[in-house]
C-alpha cells in the first residue's frame, strides 16, 4: 500500500480519538477509555507504517516539505503523549493532543508530498537531526499544554465557582511538575537538534552558523528555556511564571518551525 493510504487510515483513527475525547469532556466523564487508547495505538501503528513507506518512496528521510513535516510531527506528538500518559495518567493532555494530531495528519493528507531529490537530503544527518528536533518539539508542546492547563485551573480555582475544567484538569502542582519535566526533556532534544543541525551545516556548507533568521529564532527559544530551567532549579521558581514562560518558549519554537516549514520548506543546511 502506498504511504498516503496508510495516512488516510491513520487520520480515521485519530479522528475517533479526537471526537471521543471531546465528547467525553462535554459529559465530564473519564476522558480516555480503553476505546480511545486502542484507537490511538492502532492509529499510531498505521502512522508508523505510513512514515516507513514514505521513507522508501521519497528516497530520503520523510521530514522535508509540509506534507512530511506535518505527518512526522503528529507522529512525534502522539509518541510523546503516549509516553507521558503511561507515566502520569494525565488525561487532560488528550484535549490538546488529539485535535492537534488530527489537524496535522489532515494537513498531511491534503498537501502533496515534496519531490526534492537534493543529494544533501540523503545525508544521515537528516534522520538524526529531524528526529531529535521533532521529539523536542513534541515534548515542548506537552510542556506548553501543561502550562495552559495550569493557567486554566488557576483561573477556575481563583474564580471559586467550578466549571467543566475544574473537574477535568489535574492539580496545579501536577501541571507544574509535568510541565517542568517536559521542558527539561524537550530542552535536551532541542539542544541536540541544534548541535546536529550545526554539524550538518558544517558538513554541507563548511560553516556552523549562517546567521539565518530561523537559526536566530531557534537560539532565542533555546535561551528562553535555559532561563526557565535555571530559574526553576536555582530558586524553586514555579507555578504561574513557569507556566507563562513555558508558553512563551513554545511560541518561539512554533515561530521557528513555521518559518522553516513554510518559508523554506527544507531544514537550513539542505538548501
Amino acid at each position, binding site marked *: 500500500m502506498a504511504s498516503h493510504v496508510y495516512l488516510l487510515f491513520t487520520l480515521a483513527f485519530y479522528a475517533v480519538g479526537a471526537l471521543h475525547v471531546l465528547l467525553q469532556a462535554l*459529559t*465530564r*466523564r473519564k476522558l480516555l477509555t480503553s476505546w480511545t487508547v486502542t484507537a490511538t495505538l492502532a492509529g499510531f501503528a498505521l502512522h508508523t507504517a505510513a512514515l516507513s513507506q514514505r521513507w522508501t518512496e521519497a528516497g530520503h528521510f520523510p521530514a522535508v516539505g509540509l506534507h512530511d513535516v506535518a505527518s512526522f510531527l503528529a507522529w512525534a506528538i502522539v509518541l510523546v503523549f503516549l509516553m507521558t500518559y503511561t507515566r502520569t495518567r494525565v488525561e487532560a493532555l488528550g484535549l490538546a493532543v488529539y485535535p492537534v494530531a488530527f489537524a496535522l495528519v489532515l494537513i498531511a493528507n491534503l498537501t502533496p508530498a515534496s519531490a526534492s531529490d537534493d543529494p544533501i537530503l540523503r545525508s544521515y544527518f537528516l534522520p538524526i537531526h529531524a528526529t531529535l528536533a521533532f521529539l523536542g518539539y513534541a515534548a515542548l508542546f506537552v510542556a506548553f499544554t501543561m502550562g495552559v492547563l495550569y493557567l486554566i*485551573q488557576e483561573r477556575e*480555582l*481563583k474564580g*471559586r*465557582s*467550578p*466549571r467543566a475544567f*475544574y*473537574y477535568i484538569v*489535574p*492539580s*496545579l*502542582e*501536577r501541571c507544574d*511538575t509535568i510541565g517542568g519535566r517536559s521542558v527539561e526533556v524537550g530542552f535536551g532534544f532541542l539542544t541536540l537538534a541544534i548541535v546536529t543541525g550545526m554539524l550538518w551545516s558544517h558538513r554541507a556548507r563548511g560553516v556552523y552558523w549562517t546567521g539565518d533568521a530561523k537559526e536566530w529564532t531557534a537560539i532565542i527559544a533555546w535561551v528562553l528555556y535555559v532561563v526557565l530551567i535555571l530559574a526553576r532549579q536555582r*530558586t*524553586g*521558581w*514555579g*507555578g*504561574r*511564571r*513557569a507556566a507563562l514562560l513555558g508558553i512563551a518558549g513554545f511560541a518561539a519554537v512554533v515561530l521557528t518551525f513555521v518559518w522553516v516549514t513554510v518559508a523554506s520548506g527544507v531544514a537550513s543546511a539542505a538548501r
Partner: protein
Amino acid sequence: MIVLVGLSHRTSPLPVRESLAFSQDRLPEALRRMRQEGGVAEAMILSTCNRVELYGRGEDDEDGGRLEEFLCAFHGRPRDEIAPYVYRLTGADAVRHAFRVAASLESMVIGEPQILGQVKDAYQAAETAGTLGSALNALRNRSLAAAKRARTETGIGENAVSVSYVAVELARKIFGQLRDRNVLLVGAGKMSELAARHLVRSGARATVLGGRTFERAEALAAALGGRPAPFESLRAELAAADIVISGTGAPGIVVHREDVEHARAARGGRHQRPLFLIDIAVPRDIDPAARKVGGVFLYDLDDLKAVAEANLRERQKEASAAEGLVEREVREFLEWQKSLDVVPILVELRRRADQIRQSEMERARRRLGPLTPEQEAALEAATTAIVNKLLHSPTVLIKEIARNGYAAEQVALIRKLLGL
C-alpha cells in the same frame, strides 16, 4: 422470594420514621421476632435515619402484609396510621430496591458513602442474630458488589459534597499531594478541626495558633499530632503555611491583606508556591481583599458551599450511568435466581419420566399384541405407579432443599444427577 416492607425519606416525614426505627440494641430481638411473627424464613432489618426497611424471604405476597403488621406491633403503632407511608415490594422489585439502596441511588444525597456501611452492618447484624439464610446472603453479596462497582466505575461517589471535604478536595486541586504540607489553624473551632483532621490524615502537618485560651490550641494540636503556637507569631507561621484554616469567633478581620502580602514576600524561593486560605468563620476572619494577592486562593464558607453544590450537580449527571450499571447487575442476579428455581426441574423430571413410560408401554404393546381394555388399564396403572414411587423421594427432597433457600451447589448436582 424476597419480600420487602419499608418507609424512607421519600415516602414519610422524619417523625414517622423515628417512631418506627430499630435501635442497635433491640435489633437482635427484633430480627428473631420478625422471623416468628412475620412468618418469613430469613430476616434482615435496615434502620437508618433516612429509611426503615424489613427484608425477608417469604413464600408469597401475603408475607408483606404480615411484615407490616409486625412492624406496627413491634413499635406499638396502629397499622392504619402507618399504612400510607409504607411501601411493599416482592420478588424482582424487592431485589431491585435492595440493589439501588446499597448503591446509594435511593439516598437523599446521591452517591453518599455512609449507606454502604449501614447496609453492610444490617446484614452483619442479621447474620449474628442467625436470621440470615442463603437467599438474603446472596442478595447481600451481589448488591454490595454492585454498589462497589457503581462507586468505582461511575462518578457518583466523586467530588465532595460536604463543606469540610470540599476544603480537602480544593487543597488537592492546588497542591496535588498533601504529604508534608503545612496547615495553619487560626482558632480552634469544631469546623476547623474537622477539615484539619482530613488534611492531617492525608499527611499534612498541623500548627494550631492559640487565641485567648492557649490551652485549647495545645489540646487541639496534640489531637492533630501538630504543634501549638502563640497568636503573636501569626505572620511567621503564615509565611511557612501552605494551607490556612481560619475559624475564630472574632467579630472582625483577623488575617489582613498586609499579613498575607508579608507572608508571600517572606517565603523567598517559595514565593510562587500557592497559598490556600480557608475562611470558615462567620463573620469572616480573612480580609476578602487577600484573594487579589498573586498565588493566593481564598475560599469563605459561601464559596465552599457553592463548590459543594456544583459537585452535587456533577454527581447527578453520573447517576444515570450508575443506574444503568445497577440495573444490569439486578437482571444478572434475577437470572441467576431463576436458575435456582426448582419448579422447572420438577416439571421437567415428570415430563421425562412420563415420556419414558409412554415409549416403554408402546414397545410392550408391540411385543404383546392386542390387549384387552382390562390388560391395557393394568399396564397403565403399573407403569404409572412405578414412576410415581421412584419420583416420590427425589421430589420431596428437592422441595425440601428449595424451602431452605438458595442452594446453588445442590441444585446443580440435582440437575446433573437427573441429566437435565
